[in-house]
């Protein structure tokens, strides 16, 4: 299988063809990439597109579920944060 190279906030990650963005990050030991309203780290929870914990920005498009989106070679992924929105 051909390698897939993506970046997360500029940091390079390499995965395999067919992996999801979450899979590429998890396989490299990365556990979290989003901040909740209180600023706490979040990563994968449901793994099947239901919980929206894993949201990332992909090539400028916000709110993409990393557990469902296939990683493509060259994808520039950036993290998202809801910290600062008033935590209740």
């Amino acid at each position, binding site marked *: 299988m051909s390698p897939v190279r993506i970046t997360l906030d500029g940091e390079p990650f390499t995965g*395999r063809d067919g992996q999801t963005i979450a899979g590429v990050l998890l396989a490299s030991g990365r556990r979290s990439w989003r901040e*909740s*309203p209180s600023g706490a*780290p979040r990563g994968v929870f*449901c*793994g099947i597109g*239901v919980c929206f914990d894993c949201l990332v920005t992909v090539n400028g498009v916000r709110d993409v579920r990393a*557990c469902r989106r296939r990683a493509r070679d060259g994808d520039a992924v950036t993290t998202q944060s809801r910290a600062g929105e008033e935590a209740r």
Partner: protein
Amino acid sequence: MSRRVVVVGAGPAGLCAAAGALRAGAEVTLLDAAEDPGGQIRAWPGFERLRDHVLGHPRCGWWPETSVWSIERAGAGAPRVHVLRGEIDAAGRDRHVLRPDALVLAPGAHDRVLPFPGWELPGVSTGGAAQAFVKGEGLALGDRTLIAGSGPFLLPVAASLLEAGSRVQAVLEANPAATVARGWTRRPWELASQTGKAAELAGYAALLARHRVPYRTGRAVIEARGDGRVEEAVTARLRPDWSVVPGTEQVAAVDALCVTHGFSPRLELPVAAGCRLRAGAFADVDADQRTTAPAVYAAGEITGIAGAPAARTEGLLAGWIAGGGPPDAPEAVAVRRRRDRARAFAARLAAAHPIGAAWPGWLRPGTIVCRCEDTTYGTLRSTAADDSAHAVKLATRAGLGPCQARICGPAVAELLPAGNPHHRPVAQPIRLGELAKPPVENPGRKESAR
């Protein structure tokens, strides 16, 4: 002209519904948000043959990467189905409107996880997430994992993680051994007709034994701890009502914790179609899988959590009837009988794995209940003391985050008296730009990506 049947979801229920409708002579459009058919279970004995038959059938259009985002009722006829086609959460996907003669809904279920302190830490996931990454990418979510919750589903999760090389520390079933044993051994004649499933469960038990993974009953994870990710799980012995036996706490070092307490059916589509719910929890269907909404049928986990074999027989029947097949055809009679046996088996499993009413005893004031909005148990309680459920939601935002209460809804409903937790007019996210584009019309044109 033959009937046009749209089937939503290509898991065991939807794929079999497509097969049933094709057999009845209908034109079928089968769609799924995923790229491949198979649903959450992905494969079962006979899956490849069925997939190739359905997807290759001249009267079947297969629409992968197609999400239903809205269902519009259309008087006495079948509702219109609004879909987006394209890569998941991409910008600028195409909008289509399908106008079938009959609609089969088979969107399945997702794991239900009860909140506990620390469940929001990275590294804590559902059992389904562990399954999905092993089956989809051969990836174990951790090296030292603990599996906890309730139900037979914990066993395939353990098997997958072992297969992917994870060291599974234990499988913890919250219900006491007596409850589990009573449910599993009641009405043994039902078991005889479901030998496939029973043999599968026995196989998991043997696998756990081979890897020396303990299966402990009456024990649960009541807290996850760690700095920025899960490092420790606190487990405790439970009474039959799931209250904690004080002094039985133990701490286990883990780097992943997989928890599932059952399944929540995905009810937003049946609710949008106007289907009545049974006990507020499942799509209500008659003996032929017909819902209370005109020309809408339901099959699989949305009609009851009964496992893949039941989902397959329900799908076959729903598709056959939706496609105009006669209800009294000999094969329909046989399928109905098989379905009833599969459901009976599921009922006994459900009886073996109830959710104990005292689970909120695990919560502390600072425990997050709504993961999207970080709403804590304490905030919910203090707001609930002087407001209606609706006002509590608005004030705390519990259940109003991006997941639309799919995750916390059932827990919040138990903690507060709430309205219909399954009312989600927008079933899947749609971007403003996509909404503004006119839909592509599909005047019965059959399309297939394969």
